């Protein structure tokens, strides 16, 4: 139960200002979710044939260089490290992530993988949205789109791992306001038949993993979301990011709030209009509430 914001920049000239435009939107959603906050930023692509990996550790003084060193040995060098508060953003060369994930889980079991992708970086922490934005310097970040979440935990713990956005496949992230009513069986099905691994017992992670499964099976983002309408039950508003896409979906009853606004320069969504009210040009934007069970997507051309 939470607040959601998403911003997708159509106008390339705006991209250096993504974080600056986005941060105040998330702060507006503080009352909806004071427990924790998370932000997904789609920035520059990782170096060719590599990926961007964000890790977190409860201790801000964690020995990240040692971990980067270990990774470097595995991939033959070229690992980049940038530490921001409790998170470490790494660039890791090489095409195959799975063995590295296994190594991490074994060699550094206390380190959490926050996101893996080419352009995606997720930052999330327990605490107020303003403090989380500040700790990670989100306002200074550039990129094409960003998705954020403020959380009031319902049935799972208030932890960093339980915070949104959830990243379950390369460059995919999902935030959710609502409550799924059949996530336990979906989780089991994804575990058994899609090899999905789950870090939490959060229903939103199941929704993210479901979309990853559909996308890996060859669905377009639109098809994956249509399928989600058939297979996921309950009340939900999702905002989804992919490497080059941005999507919004509400369940067929659509009780959880959502509002969209679009101009030639950007598309923005939020749980409440107040999060959009400060965007440049919002006065002349098309403003509407997404219809129940209708898939809305945008793509970087």
């Amino acid at each position: 139960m939470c607040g959601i914001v998403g911003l997708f920049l159509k106008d390339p000239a705006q991209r250096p200002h993504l974080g600056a435009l986005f941060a105040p939107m998330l702060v507006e959603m503080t009352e909806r979710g004071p427990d924790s906050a998370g932000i997904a930023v789609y920035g520059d692509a990782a170096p060719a044939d590599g990926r961007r990996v964000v890790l977190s550790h409860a201790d801000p003084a964690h020995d990240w260089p040692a971990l980067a060193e270990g990774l470097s040995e595995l991939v033959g060098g070229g690992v980049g490290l940038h530490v921001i508060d409790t998170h470490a953003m790494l660039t890791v060369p090489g095409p195959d992530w799975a063995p590295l994930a296994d190594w991490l889980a074994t060699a550094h079991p206390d380190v959490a993988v926050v996101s893996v992708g080419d352009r995606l970086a997720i930052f999330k922490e327990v605490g107020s949205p303003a403090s989380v934005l500040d700790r990670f310097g989100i306002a200074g970040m550039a990129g094409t789109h960003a998705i954020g979440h403020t959380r009031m935990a319902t049935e799972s713990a208030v932890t960093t791992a339980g915070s949104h956005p959830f990243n379950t496949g390369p460059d995919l992230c999902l935030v959710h306001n609502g409550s799924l009513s059949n996530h336990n069986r979906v989780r089991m099905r994804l575990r058994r038949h899609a090899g999905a691994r789950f870090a939490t017992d959060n229903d939103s992670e199941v929704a993210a993993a479901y979309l990853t499964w559909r996308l890996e099976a060859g669905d377009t983002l639109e098809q994956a979301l249509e399928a989600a309408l058939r297979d996921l039950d309950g009340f939900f508003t999702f905002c989804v990011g992919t490497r080059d896409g941005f999507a919004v979906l509400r369940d067929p009853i659509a009780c959880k709030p959502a509002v969209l606004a679009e101009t030639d320069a950007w598309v923005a969504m939020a749980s409440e209009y107040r999060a959009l009210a400060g965007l440049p040009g919002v006065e002349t934007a098309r403003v509407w509430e997404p219809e129940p069970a209708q898939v809305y997507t945008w793509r970087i051309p």
Partner: protein
Amino acid sequence: MSHDDTAPPRLDAVWGQRESHLFDRHTIHEIHRAAREGMYRIRGFGAKRRLPHFDDLVFLGASISRYPLEGYREKCDTTVTLGTRYARKPITLQTPVTIAGMSFGSLSGPAKEALGRGANEVGTSTTTGDGGMTDEERTHSKTLVYQVLPSRYGMNPRHLRMADAIEVVVGQGAKPGGGGMLLGQKISDRVAEMRTLPKGIDQRSACRHPDWTGPDDLAIKIQELREITDWEKPIYVKIGATRTYYDVMLCVKAGADVIVLDGMQGGTGATQDVFIEHVGIPTLPAVRQAVEALQELDMHRTVQLIVSGGIRTGADVAKALAMGADAVAIGSAALIALGDNHPSLADAYRRMGTVPGLFEDWQAGNDPAGITTQDPDQYTRLDPAVAGHRLANYLRVLTLETQTLARACGKSHVHNMEPEDLRALTVEAAAMAGVPLAGTDWIPGRM
């Protein structure tokens, strides 16, 4: 079928034949009834099957290690203050037993008046229900809790301001996740007008509020009610017992002053039998989970907990309090105290095809006791002064019994009873209540 399958079954068993436990006569009758009517069964009252309950707990009276208080002489305080978290005007009750929300519509006007009179006599509160506040009710209840329900029938800001506390109803123990129901027989002219409905229709109330869902929205709704009433009145949130631990946490996060937790045994005016008997968890485990959630948030006693669902005796009251409740609410028991199911009405009940003790058709609008009816011929039989006094007597007995048990455990206030004063008689009660099985240190699931 040509035979009359509504005829009462012959109860004489034939020697050597065995009744199926699975397909007993009640089950067979229900299958016949469903096959005949094509409609699920709607009835009043609460769950009728055997459920783990407070009966399976006993108190450890004082002996040598603890010292009891003298009955009648040494004071055992029973006052309860509700709404201390945010409300500028918390309410104080003289007994930890309150009257649960029951609507005018499901109950007659004289029945509502009698509840108010009885509650006043002992210094406790009554609660409105679906359909709004009646003048009789406000006049006769010194302390009145005003419910804000999904249907918002008769919802009126004037009444909100006239109330002493506000209760946002999310669910009730008889049907967590279900809406209310009032069958046409009970939609009289006055009820129809209060609810803005055509007379005589079968009214289905909403199961969700029209303008909020979930805890984030609830927080804003609670703020609205506080703003409208200038932060004076305690705001309760009433939930049916299901995912109690999480629900209680979310009520606290959403800003409730008081949480009303209604267990599965809670009564109803009219609900599907399948709902009453198969949805929700019993009061016993629900109380434990609620208190654990409050303790986890360090809000126990700051956000007060009122427990209802199957409270009948002072023993039930005392055990609920010992497990951590601040007060209890009674509904079915209060109606019985007013005269529901009384043996003196045996002839009238027989004419309706039932007997005193088994009457459950509170939904039907036909009640010889004049309580669950809107028929003037029937409700005028209930003298609100006499019935109210009966209720007051019953409430006094509940209070005295509660004090008796508290004193026996050496407590000068009923809130000083603790789960450690309890032992369980069955393994299931030990597990659900989180207290040791009598004669052991064993709490199933804890070690």
